[in-house]
């Protein structure tokens, strides 16, 4: 029937599949259409040009290009200028000043300025800050909004069931402050600079460097001046090497260098895989009459079904203007590939309990970031020769409290306290060239961070039952509120988030309402508000291990979930220019560095690597 010679092998497989589709299949039309769409009459176009997938050593365009790197030595190098990295840097300098020692601490951060890639709710518990700076108020830390009202609701499509915030419940925020974390991180950066930390925003750590004995030597910053097709431009320059006795990795949730380190040093062999959620956030200037400074609102339930973990937050800031921070979190272990976290967020805003606050206001910012939900069970081995992991990168977030900043800061401070005696010791008594500091993990296990995470370790996994959300709330009420997490068992998670998606044919598409342009908005205008931008002429930093997998697997089986879970519209399936079929288009310039694609890709084919430093969102006090 089909002339065998004229078609590619993929088309052959497709044709054979069409012939063997049983006639009593549930939805034969849909199945074959999917197949036909997946078989383009041209072979997979080349999408990935990044040198991490196509090495430059074998690339003829790179012959004769100078690849030597300039190097410099520091005592400690910190990757990531977030709460953990900055707290570690500050603590190191505080200890150095106390003991009269000289210490060179260098911190590299991929954002163009400290705080520009920081996004969080956020209700800050000031415990770690008070330990770091007992006089934080006098120093002008931007904790301007103490929590005055704490409201928790279970939402149904039209109504709201209030849940009393009894003392002892993890979500209670008495004594905490609503902060704009980006501004708080910026303030931490200023404190760090005053103490003499060398901050280098705009330079991303792109590569981990190793000594000959396999211990970590430091990092190298990103190369610049590589064209979109992977060839060198006239302005090409190699990144710089920063060597250190110890390197601290504080890249935040799902860091790309941490991903490499897990494999290199086998740090995850005795822990569960990390599970995640995506958090989307907006800042709104609202009508003054609706403004209730210090009010904290959380909700669960609608629009998510009981088996999809997630909920919302809405915080009224008190910084002189009627500003509210609101957002939506969706657990990335959701099973329906048709779910779009962005559109769930937009439609939640129309709920009768939420919309009145926003009416008459206007939106001024948007952003998104993945966050950890694994808790204690997913913490990997934290130290390895030459380095250690701090902050949300290994993941110390207290999930039911939805707070991870205080534990991230404490982990950074404990890291500094553990490495300080070793790097200032008269003689370095180390087996490896890079220092191994297992004392950090010890002190962390004996600190309040561990006690706190231990008490809440079973709350998130308790959602994996038939009753979903309601089962989880009952479990929390009984075992956390009454028994304080002292039950002797530890529940497990369900495995990798990427493996939780069900095939598209087994799920129903979700009908989302159209954005009305006043309360809910479309994706592209939201992305524009994040201020994100990247140098256009560089290889896309969303690299694919195999360029053919998106169409062959993601689109065929899961109907291309990346077009829905990416909060920045990076991934689009578009028709190929000639012939039929679809191809994946990657709009790398839109990326807001949330890391959701690397986490949720069902084929685990997407590998997020860091783009040229300075690119990415331009969050202002998010």
């Amino acid at each position: 029937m089909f002339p065998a010679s004229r078609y590619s092998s993929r088309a052959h497989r497709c044709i054979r599949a069409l012939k063997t589709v049983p006639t009593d299949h549930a939805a034969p039309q849909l199945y074959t259409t999917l197949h036909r769409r997946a078989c383009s009459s041209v072979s997979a176009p080349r999408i990935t040009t990044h040198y991490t997938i196509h090495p430059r050593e074998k690339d003829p365009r790179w012959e004769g290009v100078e690849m030597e790197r300039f190097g410099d030595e520091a005592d400690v190098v910190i990757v990531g200028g977030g709460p953990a990295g900055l707290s570690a840097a500050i603590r190191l300098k505080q200890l150095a000043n106390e003991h009269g020692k000289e210490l060179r601490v260098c911190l590299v951060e991929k954002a163009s300025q400290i705080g520009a890639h920081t996004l969080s709710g956020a209700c800050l518990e000031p415990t770690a800050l008070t330990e770091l700076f007992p006089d934080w108020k006098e120093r002008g830390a931007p904790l301007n909004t103490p929590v005055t009202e704490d409201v928790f609701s279970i939402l149904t499509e039209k109504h709201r069931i209030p849940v009393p915030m009894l003392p002892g419940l993890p979500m209670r925020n008495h004594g905490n402050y609503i902060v704009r974390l980006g501004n708080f991180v910026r303030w931490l950066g200023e404190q760090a600079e005053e103490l003499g930390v060398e901050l280098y925003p705009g330079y991303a750590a792109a590569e981990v460097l190793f000594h000959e004995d396999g211990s970590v030597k430091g990092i190298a910053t990103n190369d610049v001046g590589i064209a979109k097709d992977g060839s060198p431009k006239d302005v090409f320059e190699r990144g710089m090497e920063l060597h250190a006795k110890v390197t601290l990795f504080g890249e935040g949730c799902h860091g790309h260098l941490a991903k490499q380190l897990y494999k290199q040093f086998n740090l995850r062999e005795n822990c569960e895989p990390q599970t995640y959620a995506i958090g989307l956030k907006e800042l709104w200037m609202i009508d003054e009459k609706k403004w209730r400074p210090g009010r904290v609102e959380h909700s669960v339930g609608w629009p998510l079904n009981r088996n999809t973990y997630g909920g919302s937050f809405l915080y009224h800031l008190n910084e002189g203007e009627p500003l509210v921070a609101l957002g939506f979190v969706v657990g990335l272990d959701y099973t329906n590939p048709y779910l779009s976290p962005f559109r769930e967020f937009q439609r939640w805003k129309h709920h009768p309990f939420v919309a009145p606050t926003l009416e008459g206001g206007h939106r001024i910012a948007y952003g998104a970031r993945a966050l950890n939900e694994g808790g204690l069970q997913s913490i990997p081995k934290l130290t390895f020769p030459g380095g250690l992991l701090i902050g949300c990168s290994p993941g110390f977030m207290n999930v039911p409290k939805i707070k991870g900043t205080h534990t991230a800061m404490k982990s950074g401070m404990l890291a500094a306290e553990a490495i300080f005696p070793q790097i200032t010791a008269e003689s370095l008594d180390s087996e490896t060239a890079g220092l191994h500091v297992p004392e950090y993990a010890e002190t962390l296990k004996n600190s309040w961070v561990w006690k706190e995470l231990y008490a809440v370790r079973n709350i998130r996994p308790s959602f994996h039952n038939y009753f979903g959300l309601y089962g989880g709330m009952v479990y929390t009420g009984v075992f956390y509120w009454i028994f304080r997490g002292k039950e002797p068992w530890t529940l497990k998670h369900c495995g990798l988030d990427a493996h939780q998606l069900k095939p598209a044919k087994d799920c129903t598409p979700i009908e989302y309402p159209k954005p009305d342009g006043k309360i809910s908005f479309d994706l592209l205008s939201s992305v524009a508000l994040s201020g994100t931008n990247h140098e256009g002429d560089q290889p896309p930093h969303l690299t694919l291990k195999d360029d053919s997998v998106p169409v062959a697997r993601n689109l065929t089986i899961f109907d291309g979930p990346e077009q829905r879970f990416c909060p920045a519209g990076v991934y689009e399936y578009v028709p190929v220019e000639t012939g039929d079929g679809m191809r994946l288009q990657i709009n790398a310039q839109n990326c807001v560095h949330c890391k959701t694609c690397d986490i949720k890709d069902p084929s685990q084919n997407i590998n997020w690597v860091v783009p040229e430093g300075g690119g990415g969102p331009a969050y202002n006090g998010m």
Partner: protein
Amino acid sequence: MSGRVLVGVKRVIDYAVKIRVKPDNTGVVTDGVKHSMNPFCEIAVEEAVKLKEKKLIKEVVAVSCGPQQAQETIRTALAMGADRGIHVEVAGKDYETLGPLQVSKILAALAKKEDAQLIILGKQAIDDDCNQTGQMTAALLDWPQGTFASEVSLEGDKVKVVREIDGGLETIKINTPAVVTADLRLNTPRYATLPNIMKAKKKKIANVKPADLGVDLTSRLEVLRVDEPPQRQAGMKGSTELSRRDS
């Protein structure tokens, strides 16, 4: 000839950031917003550094007028290859009303003080789009000007400038000392790499006050109001009758 080139660099809100008007309509929100060097100023710095690398000039001095943060912009210019920097301190209300007239007076005074052979500026800043500073500076100094340059070459004590004009390209030859303003196609600026940023920390930035240069910062302009551009209205479908009538 001194072989010294003065390059003006301005710290502006980054071009990719969404601008927001202040609630009191007196200006735009700048607090905490991402700023970077004006793209045309980057091109100006690159051109000056290229001239130095060709050994046609001896020293590149980067100048910026503004508050403390302007020093970051000067550092970037130093990291790109400028030799030293001059930070003209203008802050607060004075900075809000700082415009091309005052800046050109400052640059003219500095050019005389530093005995500059050439001043290279960006053609305009992306925040105010004035496109006046280069021209005003040349007028105050009574120097020739080569604006909208897409090509600059030094020939002895003259400068040949190819200018981008509405009708195409115009080539002029002007005497030095002169003012040149850079247009988009003049060059592709190099990156300020980390080792150069670290080296730039050792280069000197001198602090100068406008009063020291004898410049009066009072503005001749008063901003009455700043508004967002009007919302785009939907277009209207025209009738096909009109087009048939015209043919």
